[in-house]
């Protein structure tokens, strides 16, 4: 039972072949994303509070948070749904991206911190540090910080992927290693000596590029940027995955040996895809942090990464918008559920995962497409 459960996680019964549905679904996804973004922004900016059409800033920020989760889910779907690499450690890349952004935001606080030190963030003053550690240098520059957001997780993914894929570690073993990776990073970031604020993490951010983070306009802008990045990454990934590269990647998922004997260096393909996916996860993290206002080592928790896998499974792996749908639905449910009955959420999540894996191997999108088929499906 357990073995077949796990093996069903490592294979994808893709619904890519319903070509019309997939391109239609993709267009529909982009249209909905665009309309919701525009309408929500207008609702916030043009209609005064009290008007029935007003969208409050809390909702805008919540949507922005969901969209960065959706981006993370897409990153996981790219490696899991398309290439069969079940990564249970993508939260690590997300958190590293978040820390990159957090470090920039910390440096922007300047002397407005509690201790008023012009250079050192509060936690360093608190720890009696006299100067900025070397790895904090340069993070006052936004372009440099963004470069690091892409570079550090990308590099980590490259080293990890290169070692793992070259040694032909696959399946459950790889999943366990990714868990270990994120767990190790979590323990490291919990330590004060690491210089990333220990278990409090980085918080109390003031502004980004000179704009006040508490301001409605900034929040709406961050939401719009997140939506645009999500749409852009979707289009880019769709382009890459529908090219011959994507067909090679799916072939690796289904019969890796055959792909090798055809002459492809599958390790290189997998490393490339893993790095690409890690960078997307990092971007998601960098977009997430200014909207929620905090990043701490809890983001590295193995449970977080597993949760992402649940989102993708619920939405439907092997289709990019399936991952987005799953992330939005599960997070919406989480927000509602934890409001009503916080203790039960983890049980609900676990039940959802088991249920979806057994009864809906292709997720909600798969259910919709087979339902459409059985109804004549004159697509």
């Amino acid at each position, binding site marked *: 039972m357990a073995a077949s459960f796990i093996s069903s996680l490592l294979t994808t019964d893709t619904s890519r*072949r319903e070509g019309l549905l997939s391109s239609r679904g993709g267009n529909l996804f982009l249209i909905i994303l665009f309309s919701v973004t525009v309408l929500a922004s207008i609702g916030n900016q043009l209609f005064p509070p009290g008007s029935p059409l007003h969208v409050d800033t809390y909702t805008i920020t919540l949507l922005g948070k969901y969209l960065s989760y959706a981006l993370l889910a897409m990153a996981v779907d790219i490696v899991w749904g398309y290439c069969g690499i079940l990564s249970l450690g993508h939260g690590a890349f997300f958190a590293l991206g978040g820390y990159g952004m957090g470090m920039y935001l910390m440096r922007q606080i300047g002397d407005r911190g509690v201790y008023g030190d012009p250079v050192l963030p509060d936690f360093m003053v608190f720890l009696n540090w006299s100067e900025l550690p070397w790895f904090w240098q340069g993070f006052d520059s936004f372009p440099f910080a963004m470069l690091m957001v892409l570079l550090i997780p990308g590099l980590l993914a490259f080293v990890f992927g290169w070692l793992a894929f070259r040694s032909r570690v696959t399946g459950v073993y790889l999943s366990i290693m990714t868990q270990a990776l994120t767990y190790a990073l979590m323990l490291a970031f919990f330590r004060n000596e690491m210089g990333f604020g220990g278990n409090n993490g980085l918080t109390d951010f003031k502004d980004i590029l000179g704009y006040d983070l508490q301001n409605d306009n900034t929040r709406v802008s961050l939401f719009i940027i997140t939506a645009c990045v999500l749409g852009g990454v979707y289009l880019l990934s769709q382009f890459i995955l529908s090219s011959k590269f994507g067909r090679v990647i799916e072939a690796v998922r289904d019969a890796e*040996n055959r*792909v090798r004997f055809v002459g492809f260096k599958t390790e290189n393909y997998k490393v490339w895809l893993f790095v690409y996916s890690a960078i997307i996860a990092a971007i998601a993290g960098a977009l997430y942090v200014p909207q929620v206002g905090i990043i701490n080592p809890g983001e590295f928790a193995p449970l977080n990464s597993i949760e992402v896998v649940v989102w993708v499974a619920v939405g439907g792996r092997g289709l990019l918008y399936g991952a987005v749908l799953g992330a939005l639905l599960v997070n919406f449910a989480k927000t509602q559920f934890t409001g009503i009955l916080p203790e039960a959420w983890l049980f609900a999540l676990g039940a959802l995962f088991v249920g979806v894996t057994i009864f809906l191997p292709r997720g909600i999108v798969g259910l919709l497409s087979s339902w459409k088929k059985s109804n004549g499906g004159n697509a």
Partner: protein
Amino acid sequence: MEQLDKFRELMRRDRVFDFMMPDQMPAVDVSHEVLLYVEGLTVSFDGFKALNDLNLYIDDGELRCLIGANGAGKTTLMDVITGKTQPDSGMAYFGQTHNLLNKNESDIATLGIGRKFQKPTVFEQHTVFENLELSLRMSKAILASIFYRMSSEQSDRIADVLDIIGLSKQSNQLAGALSHGQKQWLEIGMLLVSDPRLLLVDEPVAGMTPQETEHTAELLTSLAGERTVVVVEHDMAFVRSIAKKVTVLHQGFVLAEGNMDEIQNNPDVIEVYLGESQ
């Protein structure tokens, strides 16, 4: 100084950088008319010798059949040649110059050695056409794959192969939906479209109807000459219908080699192999 020389070599203006050179099929030197040399090959798994000091020479353009009981080492031999298994000792050369033992699967495939597995292995979630597209001989680099556009020569080539393997009508069907025999053919088609120098074909007619078997026999014999084909097969009638030269493996070494009549009259072979089945 040595570094400087290397640098000067790199900066020479009369030639392009090595890494800018287009991918070319490395030439295979067959001046001695032998395409594949396998000498003294030994592979053991936990003390069991799957191959035991095996010697085998395949001539260029030959159609060779390998037969032998289960466990005789046929598949292990193919694994070694295609880079899947590392032998304990021995050597394997492709032509005069290419040492196969220090290359991995994809390098060996690029050299021009194609392999059909015992169990038909095709990309089940891809269409028949895409299966052939992936097997085309072309750059297998990542960027080349992302920006790949199929040329008309390549689509013609795929159409030709579809015709040869009789799957033109199934071109847009998922490979997973094909019958067992059709999958076997698709896999042979994947080999053909990659223009290999040497085809290693493991049990091509397992699970085929007599008509399909006959068709496969024609296909394989028509390939020999311009390509070299090595067939592993249990079906003796099939072997008799295609083989000029047969090699019998037994417990990891070559028991006998010759044409079918010689093999059938060889007392050793009668004792260990044909004798049992008669």
